[in-house]
């Protein structure tokens, strides 16, 4: 098919629809509003529900309720809303409720600049839940990624029963571009799994082989319990330290041990001593910067991360192996570079960041690569 002219936010909404999303609750906040607008155009007509929450906390609550009732659900906000989502995010983490959360990042702190881009929430998304358990964060580079990674986000939320974030950015979300979605390779759509035998169903029962509990919906033929309290397999409060500890470790390993199954990235390997690592909209400037370098007679490698959390440490180590020097570029004052420094502790890791509402330019990145 021919391309469409879409902004990243529209591509997110279309990806959600392809993934089987049936419920969206959001509220107006620049630069995420157009996801709400698009969902309102897409969902009700197809038998789903899109509602405008009275606030951020409510929007998340509606989604968690609908998700527990068996509907794939999504919400979208920006940094100021993520902070208000926080307690509900913790609920989704601890009580294993599938949900996709789009954070269209804007320049912070706080109200900041509603119409300026940034990638300032990258550590916040990881650590913004009480208890500090891991979450999945995917970072799109362009409208095509907004579509594809939203589908992956739903698949992951269903597979691992967890919140999955799409860390978008005003500069992708509200920039329109020509994109042929039909030419993209769309993954198979995954739905949460019901137990083989629902008669003996326990809402948080797991096995050696399976770290994620099976799912039955609230409202089905078997009464189902959900709780935000520390619980055992039966969904009732527990004070058994052994049971509690095992469950916390399971929630951690469930995602961290599986990251290789959902490590998304792009790579341009090069015979070079330098590897540039970037993500999000900045990766587009980094790609142009490596082109500029090549034309100037210097080849440089490029690694574009699309799975940010859990940190795909093994992949990063493999890809960085042949390079002596790593340059991390991101649209903040140094967030993900901390992970790169940790993972590549034996390498020379340099950093360039910018937080002024402007895109980092290819020329500036080339200067950093050239050591200027």
């Amino acid at each position: 098919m021919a391309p469409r002219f879409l902004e990243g936010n529209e591509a997110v909404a279309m990806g959600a629809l392809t993934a089987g999303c049936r419920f969206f609750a959001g509220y107006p906040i620049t630069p995420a509003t157009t996801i709400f607008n698009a969902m309102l155009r897409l969902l009700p007509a197809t038998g789903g529900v899109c509602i405008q929450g009275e606030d951020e906390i409510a929007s998340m609550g509606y989604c968690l309720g609908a998700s527990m009732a068996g509907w794939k659900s999504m919400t979208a906000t920006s940094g100021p809303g993520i902070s208000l989502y926080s307690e509900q995010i913790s609920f989704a983490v601890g009580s294993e409720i599938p949900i996709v959360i789009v954070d269209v990042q804007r320049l912070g702190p706080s109200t900041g600049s509603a119409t300026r881009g940034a990638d300032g929430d990258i550590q916040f998304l990881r650590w913004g839940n009480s208890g500090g358990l891991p979450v999945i964060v995917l970072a799109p580079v362009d409208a095509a990624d907004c579509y594809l990674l939203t589908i992956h986000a739903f698949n992951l939320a269903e597979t691992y029963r967890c919140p999955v974030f799409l860390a978008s950015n005003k500069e992708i979300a509200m920039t329109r571009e020509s994109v042929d979605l039909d030419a993209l390779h769309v993954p198979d759509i995954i739905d949460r799994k019901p137990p083989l035998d629902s008669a003996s169903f326990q809402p948080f029962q797991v096995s050696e082989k399976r770290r994620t509990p099976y799912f039955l919906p609230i409202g089905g033929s078997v009464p189902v319990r959900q709780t935000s309290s520390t619980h055992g397999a039966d969904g009732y409060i527990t004070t058994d330290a052994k049971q509690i500890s095992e469950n916390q470790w399971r929630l951690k390993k469930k995602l961290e041990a599986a990251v290789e199954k959902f490590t998304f990235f792009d790579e341009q390997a090069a015979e070079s001593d330098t590897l540039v690592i970037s993500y999000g909209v900045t990766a587009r400037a980094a790609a142009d910067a490596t082109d500029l370098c090549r034309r100037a007679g210097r080849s440089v490698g490029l690694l574009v991360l699309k799975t940010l959390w859990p940190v795909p440490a093994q992949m990063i180590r493999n890809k960085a192996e042949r390079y002596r020097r790593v340059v991390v570029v991101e649209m903040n004052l140094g967030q993900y570079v901390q992970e790169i420094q940790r993972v590549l502790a034996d390498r020379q890791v340099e950093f360039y960041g910018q937080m002024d509402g402007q895109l980092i330019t290819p020329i500036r990145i080339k200067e950093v690569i050239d050591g200027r």
Partner: protein
Amino acid sequence: MAASLLNKDRPPVFCPGCSHDRITGALDQAFQKLGLAGSQVAIVSDIGCSGLFDTFFHTHALHGLHGRALTYAAGIKLARPGLQVVVTMGDGGQGIGGAHLLAACRRNLNLTMLVLNNFNFGMTGGQFSVTTPSEARVGSGFLNQLEKPLDICQVARSAGAAYVKRCSSYQSGLADDIAEAIAFEGFSLVDIWGICPGRYSRQNPLTPKIIAESMAAMPPADGVVEENRRPEYGSVYRKTAKGQKTVHPPHVEQQFQPPGTGRHEILLLGNAGQRIITAGEILCLAGMTAGLQATQKNEYNITVLRGPSVCEVILSSDRISFTGLGQPDVVIVLSREGVDRRKSLFAELHPQSLVLKATDTQIPDCSGAVHLLDFKKMGVKPADRALASLAVLAKAGKIIDIEMLKAALWLRFTDKVQDSVLGLVERVGSNN
């Protein structure tokens, strides 16, 4: 009558004499009166002593965050309209989630909310809540004396709740009242007054008789609120949704060969009302009709009807990676406000950069090739300046041509508007 839905393995664990015990029993009886099975009911409980309710029943259950129970309940009900969803919440959670109560009353989704109103935060040590009387002695020192307690029933009523009932935990027929509220088609709220011997009544004399007397002194709240009666939200939503159409942005087929290759950057500088953003979109669509890649970035004030409007467009025969502009190939200058946003750019333009400038707009010293557009002479209204400029650009035929521009207008507009924009392009394209 159906069987009891009480969970025999988990009997209530409230303090002796706690009125929650009575409400638990009454709720079970209400379920039985309505003939409900456990799988037909979801209890959404809040935090605090009222948050234990879900564990005493064999039903679907969701125990969430403090004050937010109504939000989960709404999500569940929208996805499962056939399920009876009952929310249990204390007066503490009521204060925390006040916005959600207002929203639920206004929305009229078929939920039942039981407020277990015992005038304090019991579980945390008897602090004052939104319903604590000013004269009560509670765990918040003198603070409650400075605030006026809230009448939940009056709040719910004025927020649009169609069913509001005030009850005592001790009155006969409580089960019937709860059953009636559950059976009501729409949002129903039952404000159930009770005694918390664990925390509240140790310092404040409160008996079933005092409760009954206090309630009698309150404005009546006795069930259906006629002036708020209206169709239930979910059923109206589903009916309205059926008539909606899913609209996707259109595909743009390649119809032409592009006039040139490589990357072209076009900057439009104008103000609100000049349809700068629309012109940028048309320019991109025009490029796409010749198979070009396109990106568009906009900048405007939040006051959309006033202030600068700036649009950055890239058209390229190759993949567009970086979406920012370097030195644009074309700058379309339509108003001073837009120019002010990009002042420093003019001195750095390439000599071959084309500047299409309205005669009535000043720009700083400029190194590009300036071409003047006298819109007055051309008979172009302010709102059509941007589109007219595209026609001039298309006539030059380097980045887009007139056929591409017309094809974009065909895609973007219909009916009368289409006729008028095509007419404008026709006119400007042939005159200028």
